[in-house]
């Protein structure tokens, strides 16, 4: 057990898996000599050599598509997108080939794409996005969004073990800001299981990624309203049962995400709650998310874009008072 940053937890987990399992290799732009744009793979190439830590050409389709081939040949590729935003250039390979191959012809395609995502530091429209909602709609892909160093490690290992294409969203704003105890030994966290970040009785917040911390801050400001925070961790599959249980307990729920509102994955959660826990609800299902715009660069705009503690406080109060 040691205290580690979120980033260190990811890096260590990946290194551990590569030591353990020769089938695991890393591919991406600048992941080798440079150690990755965020230094997650720093020192990896020295240890594992240039054919297990592969500096790819600037070609996301080749990166993602080759993972499908190598995975089918029995390897366990872990691709890095330099920023999650650039996965749009690998979209077709993911949704058309990787996602559907198992269902169509029975061939599992076990690989992981790591996606440094999220905003909060003026990355602008193309270095700040949270593209998980787009992929959550595509059957055949799994999507993970860890919020803590412990989950970051355990879920990455689970992702590598999983026999499916897994998109692993790592929030850039948590990389160095968030620290926590991380077990040294190898462990997995089950995919599809939520984590109760904080227990409470009056209102539930369903969220993931960096917003877990925003929700925590907001809950502190609520005074005597008792807030339960469910950290989904896994977006697809998602832990419907845990969510519904929490909602049945509190009868009020706020769904929170950093991605934009309309058609965001929060809609799926809200719709499911509205359908399956209708009788348990004492208030409308509230969604707090970014407005429907690209991610802005300038700080005052970005602050207005990313859900802030006060936005969540406001939502929670409205629910509490309903």
């Amino acid at each position, binding site marked *: 057990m040691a205290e580690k940053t979120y980033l260190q937890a990811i890096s260590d987990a990946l290194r551990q898996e590569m030591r353990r399992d020769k089938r695991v*290799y890393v591919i991406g732009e600048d992941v080798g000599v440079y150690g990755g744009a965020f230094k997650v793979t720093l020192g990896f190439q020295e240890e594992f050599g240039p*054919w*297990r830590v*592969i500096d*790819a*050409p600037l*070609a996301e*389709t*080749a990166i*993602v*598509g*080759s*993972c*499908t*081939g*190598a*995975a*089918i*040949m*029995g*390897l366990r*590729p872990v691709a890095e997108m330099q920023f999650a935003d650039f996965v749009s250039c690998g979209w*077709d*390979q993911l949704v*058309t*080939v990787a996602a*559907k*191959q*198992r*269902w*169509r*012809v*029975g*061939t*599992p*395609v*076990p690989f992981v794409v790591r996606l440094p995502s999220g905003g909060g530091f003026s990355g602008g429209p193309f270095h700040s996005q949270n593209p998980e909602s787009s992929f959550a709609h595509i*059957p*055949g892909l*799994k999507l993970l969004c860890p919020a803590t160093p412990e989950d970051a490690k355990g879920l990455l290992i689970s992702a590598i*073990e999983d*026999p*499916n294409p897994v998109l692993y969203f790592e929030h850039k704003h948590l990389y160095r800001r968030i620290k926590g105890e991380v077990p040294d030994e190898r462990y997995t966290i089950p995919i599809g299981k939520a984590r109760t970040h904080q227990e409470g009785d009056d209102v539930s917040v369903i969220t993931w990624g960096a917003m877990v911390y925003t929700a925590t801050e907001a809950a502190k400001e609520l005074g005597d309203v008792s807030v339960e925070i469910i950290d989904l961790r896994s977006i697809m599959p998602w832990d419907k049962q845990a969510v519904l249980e929490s909602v049945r307990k509190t009868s009020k729920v706020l769904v929170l995400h950093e991605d934009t509102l309309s058609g965001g994955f929060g809609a799926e959660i809200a719709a499911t709650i509205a359908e399956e826990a209708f009788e348990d609800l004492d208030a409308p299902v509230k969604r707090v998310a970014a407005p429907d715009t690209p991610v802005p660069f300038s700080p005052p705009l970005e602050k207005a874009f990313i859900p802030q503690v006060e936005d969540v406080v406001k939502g929670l109060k409205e629910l509490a008072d309903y």
Partner: protein
Amino acid sequence: MAVREAEPVASLSEVKEAGLDREDLLGIYRSMLITRGIEERGHILYKQGKIPGSFYTGRGNEAASIGVATAMGPEDVGTPLHRDMGVHVVRGVETWRIFAQYMGREDGPTRGRDGNVHMADARLGLIAMVSHLPAMLPVAVGCALAFRIREENRVAVGWFGEGASARGDTHESMTFAGTRRLPVVFVCDNNQWAYSTPTHLEYATDHVADRAGAYGFDGVVVDGTDVLAVYREAKRAIEKAREGGGPTLLECLTLRMEGHAVHDDAFYVPKEMFEEWAKRDPLERFRVWLQEHANMTGEEEEEIAAQVKKLLNDALNRAEESPLPTPEQLLEGVYATPEDLDTPHHK
């Protein structure tokens, strides 16, 4: 790096040098007959209303697909496309399963989930195509990357049409394979039409293979109706890749002898073009070649034809007995389970 235009194969001795004996040659001929037969029967099935959706054939491409597949080693892998039924045949797919696939039956390789040649038996070293062209090229490159990482002497073969050569996937695949000298052979089924679109609207060079140099490897153009020439060039390319010599772009020039799919009468293809290429029918060419160079007798010919006919009849009957999938099956297997990994291709 210049493109080489391959010569036809002249003599039996040359063929022997390339590693084929007389048995092999008759086997190739047999595969060609089976391939054409499957697609002709498929066409009839379609007209009988037994094949839902649309129907595609590779008529005219039999020599190209079979020549390449014959040159592949047993451990090599490939991503054949909709004109490459011959690859499945050579790799040993059971014929009845193809008919079952056509008809959306449970015993097709996709169990009715996908149609046409959107299928493959992974145990035979083939990966099932998607419709999106040429999205399987990056996948083939990934197979080659795996071979390189594990230092295996295996080669991946990726197919693409001359139309699909225009898409970015082609470029990224060749760029990656070229810079890393991966053991992959890119086979272009150049049948001169992409649906109704002629070649000059898809690429601005004389040959697709002219582009190989742009990726740092060799390009070869071969007459795709000459099965032995295709075999020889594919063999060279594959063995070169196996020995660490990097990729080759092998372009097989043919004509798509039917419409794009069954609904298309190909009005846009000049009649003379069809007439000219009809004279170079790959089966007929090879039949004559076998008579002239390998003394194939009329008896042998008849025997093979009879075998093939029986094979097809039996396969059709068996396929027709295969049930349609049941609605409950729809939801199965969207996600793989750990047990799914215990398959040969994941070894």
